[in-house]
């Protein structure tokens, strides 16, 4: 009797639950489709990659660092120390002699206790981020430059840009079947190429112009909250086309900046690499939480 009276009250919620579970499962959240299983395997795989990619560690070549920072380094820091020094001590604010060497950073003269590594980055003390939600930039790396403050000059420099989606080759089973044909055999959409760069231009400007010149498809979206363009797709390979953790990332001189590509001002001789990640950056050496 009770069952006869209330069966629909039980059958209907059960059906709804089954439908929801099925859509969750087949919607890409199933283990193996970039979800739970990969989460476990990621932890050991990250650990060895981290010291070299860690922002506090020494960059691959000293020359590049000089270009970015444009200021002399203390000799102790120039020695590749990532084997011995923990990233945390490395990432701490500059030692006092380093600060004293800078002529321009007088007014804000950060006290040693302040966690901001760079005196010119305005960080909200409550959130620990700047007004575009960027965490403090690791020491020795260029600060974000707001595109609306920049006047593009006429002085021409050169930089190197490359676009690669080699990680898709390892994840072809996750790739959208309609997009497989787009993936080049060697993964290079654009091999490292010397391009002209005008003074004050951002990584985004360079990418956009290069794609137009090379007839490579590129779609972006402006995200005001980060004050930057977000690259949704290059060469018709879009974010989320290879699993839920996929999308485009960029690095300059081997470092994945922790801010958007419109805010990264390119310098003469910089090496820009656009790479497609299938695992939130862990498969290209710039993990999701890089820098924190």
């Amino acid at each position, binding site marked *: 009797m009770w069952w006869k009276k209330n069966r629909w009250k039980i059958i209907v919620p059960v059906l709804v639950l089954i439908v929801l579970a099925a859509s969750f499962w087949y919607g890409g959240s199933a283990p193996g489709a970039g979800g739970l299983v990969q989460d476990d395997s990621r932890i050991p795989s990250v650990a060895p990659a981290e010291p070299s990619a860690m922002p506090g560690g020494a960059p691959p070549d000293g020359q590049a660092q000089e270009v970015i920072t444009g200021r002399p380094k203390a000799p102790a820091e120039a020695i590749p120390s990532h084997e011995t020094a923990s990233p945390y001590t490395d990432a701490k604010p500059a030692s006092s002699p380093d600060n004293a060497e800078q002529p321009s950073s007088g007014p804000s003269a950060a006290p040693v206790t302040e966690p901001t590594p760079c005196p010119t980055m305005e960080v909200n003390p409550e959130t620990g981020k700047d007004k575009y939600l960027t965490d403090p930039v690791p020491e020795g790396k260029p600060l974000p430059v707001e595109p609306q403050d920049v006047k593009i000059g006429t002085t021409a420099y050169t930089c190197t840009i490359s676009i690669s989606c080699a990680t898709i080759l390892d994840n072809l089973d996750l790739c959208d079947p*309609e*997009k497989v044909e*787009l993936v080049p055999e060697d993964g290079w959409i654009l091999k490292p190429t010397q391009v002209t760069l005008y003074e004050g231009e951002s990584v985004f400007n360079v990418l*956009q112009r290069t794609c*137009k010149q090379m*007839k490579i*498809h*590129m*779609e*972006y979206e402006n995200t005001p909250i980060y004050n930057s363009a977000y690259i949704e*797709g290059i060469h*018709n390979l*879009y974010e989320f086309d290879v699993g839920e953790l996929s999308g485009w990332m960029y690095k300059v001189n081997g470092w994945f900046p922790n801010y958007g590509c419109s805010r990264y001002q390119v310098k003469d001789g910089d090496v820009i690499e656009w790479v497609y990640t299938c695992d939130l950056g862990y498969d290209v050496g710039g993990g999701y939480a890089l820098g924190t």
Partner: protein
Amino acid sequence: METAAPPHERMIHMRNRDAFSGYNPVINFLFFGLVLVFSMCLMHPVCLAVSLVASLSYAIYLNGRKAVRYSLSYMLPMMFMASLINPAFNHEGATILTYLPGGNPLTLESILYGLAASTMLASVMTWFSSYTAVMTSDKFVYLFGRVIPALSLVLSMTLRFVPKFKAQIQVVSEAQRCIGRDASNGSAVQRIKNGITILSIMITWSLENAIETADSMKSRGYGIPGRTAFSIYRFDERDKYALIWLIFCGVYICSGWAIGGLYYRYFPTARGVGMGPFPISFFTCYLALCLTPIVINRKGDHKWKRLQSAI
């Protein structure tokens, strides 16, 4: 409140709109269900064209000049808008035509997809206009009154709401005009005031009407188990053949869909199955399915003419 319509008018309301409407509601509902699902899901250009043409011709058969006017004055601009708006937001596609002022590419594929999506939208809307003409609320309640009594009553009341509201607003506005308080009387401010009064009357009326309908249905014992409902529909030979035909078409098109015989993609390049014996058989079957009511109506009309001339 309810004024009884003159007998001849009531006859018109009771009469079926066309021969297809005279079939069992199961057939009507199954047909519209199949056609709507296929129109929404099959994005092959041939399928879209078939669906649009068939839906328009059926709507014109049912509603005559009104359907033509509606599709020209609403559908055409809507399709135009949709095919313009899509490339403004969607920049995917391998064929870059030019660059938009914002810096994103304008691609051929996004224009094609906009056209396809707007065709799909227009054909679905046209099918629904035929659906409301054929599937009257009594047919709907006949089909679902036993299985889901509360929901089917709510649905039929909701579907009836807009036409009923329009009719009632006419009545109220005419009554107000008699005492000089219509939205067309007086100064601009007075007109607005009168309009708001009429709106307030209408909202009160619709709330009260909904409760009255629910109470009325309850007092008649609607939805109580064991209670039978009068219905004028029967399921005879022609309904059986129609059901077999609809199931055959549905299964054949679904199987073609499942094996990829109707495959078409718009991104990153627009392409899909071309013209082969199998795809053509699926398209033909789809066309036959979509034209089913028109064929039935034509046959009915011919029979009627022949019988008339034989007298």
